[in-house]
């Protein structure tokens, strides 16, 4: 674990730094694939960056709106407004951020006349880079930790030898990324890369989440991210089915 990076008198939160690096490198990867697909790489980067920024602002706005009574109780008004804009961790609403980020992304894609499927493929690839860095951030913070294990590669964390779950997902994400990048010519059909990455990440979530000790759960113990992973996989398979022919071409 390395939650804080100390440079002289300055302390930097390592997980957030890694996430920023992941966002930047992810957008770089998306831009590169976008360029190969004939998209303007600067616009691919800018669209992703704008959507991420809008998502960040949306997550704070969503949190404030959901907890408006708490904010409106603060006096004077200037102090309340300062509380809204101060960058503090824990005052975000992920769902609101996701919705605002997607809406902003769709707006810029429409405004700049970007082909949606090629754009999705580019961001799916970039998303794997972000996922890999997200796991490095979790290694640094000690979050997303595995259940206790007696296996020799267990890592000591929170008082037990645990599955290095962050490393499992990191390796799987890097493997999937390498595969998608190496086979990018074969996977040139717009939308194909997105479908395959959806299936890959969905299966990763289904398998690895079962080894997670701090899973968000609901409805009597169901793991949220396993449900999300299955939904992603099923969605991608439905997409494949929709694109597939009803009969063999020879049979017509």
């Amino acid at each position, binding site marked *: 674990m390395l939650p*804080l990076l100390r440079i002289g008198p300055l302390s930097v939160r390592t997980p957030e730094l890694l996430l920023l690096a992941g966002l930047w490198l992810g957008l770089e990867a998306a831009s590169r694939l976008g360029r190969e697909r004939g998209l303007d790489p600067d616009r691919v980067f800018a669209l992703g960056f704008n959507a991420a920024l809008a998502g960040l602002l949306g997550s704070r706005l969503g949190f404030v709106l959901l*907890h408006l009574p708490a904010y409106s109780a603060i006096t004077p008004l200037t102090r309340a407004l300062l509380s809204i804009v101060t960058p503090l961790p*824990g005052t975000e609403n992920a769902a609101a951020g996701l919705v605002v980020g997607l809406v902003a992304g769709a707006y810029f894609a429409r405004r700049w006349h970007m082909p949606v499927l090629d754009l999705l493929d580019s961001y799916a690839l970039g998303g794997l880079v972000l996922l890999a860095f997200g796991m490095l951030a979790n290694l640094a913070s*000690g979050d997303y930790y595995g259940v206790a294990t007696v296996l020799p590669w267990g890592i000591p964390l929170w*008082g037990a030898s645990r599955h290095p779950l962050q490393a499992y997902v990191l390796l799987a994400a890097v493997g999937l990324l390498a595969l998608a990048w190496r086979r990018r010519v074969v996977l040139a059909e717009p939308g194909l890369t997105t479908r395959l990455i959806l299936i890959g990440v969905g299966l990763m979530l289904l398998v690895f989440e079962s080894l997670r000790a*701090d899973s968000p759960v609901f409805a009597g113990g169901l793991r949220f991210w396993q449900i999300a992973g299955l939904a992603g*996989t099923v969605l991608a398979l439905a997409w494949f089915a929709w694109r597939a022919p009803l009969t063999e071409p020879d049979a017509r």
Partner: protein
Amino acid sequence: MIPRLRTQWLALLVVMLVVGLAWISATRVSATDINPTGRPPQPVAGHPAPDFQLVSLDGETRSLAEFRGRTVILNFWATWCGPCRVEIPALEATWQGYGGEVVIIGVNIREDAATVSRYVDELGVSYPVLLDTDGTVGRLYNVQAFPTTYIISPDGVVIEPYTGMLSEPLLRTRLADLGASPVEGVE
């Protein structure tokens, strides 16, 4: 073999759905693990907060366990820490505003009682301040930067650890989530 026809993809989808749901059901978190108090004490969300005993500024020995039944905001700080000074009014307002339903415990790390006492008087801090003179409790709670704060539920479970300055809205929303509400007329 990669499916080609729509029916083959749909068959794969159904198989995936059935296997996936079975797997999710088989690997669901058991009832005993959902109960966070079944986990070992760790300064991590979902784990019971590690207990400790420290001497307060008043010279009394206090333990975390004695505050069980009330929401506890455990705040690690030092007099030389700027952000700690900035967040103290929000902590004091919370201490005053929740009428005992919420307990603020300030744990000063590695400073002498006289220095801490002068500082506390200057800022008008009225919530309990404990002295962790050798940093033992700070290490127990993995304090790596100031301020570090733990919100602990009435049943003694860590709800959320925070490194960095807290804000009043954040405190209020988290306390509201725990069912604590400010006493009318005090806000």
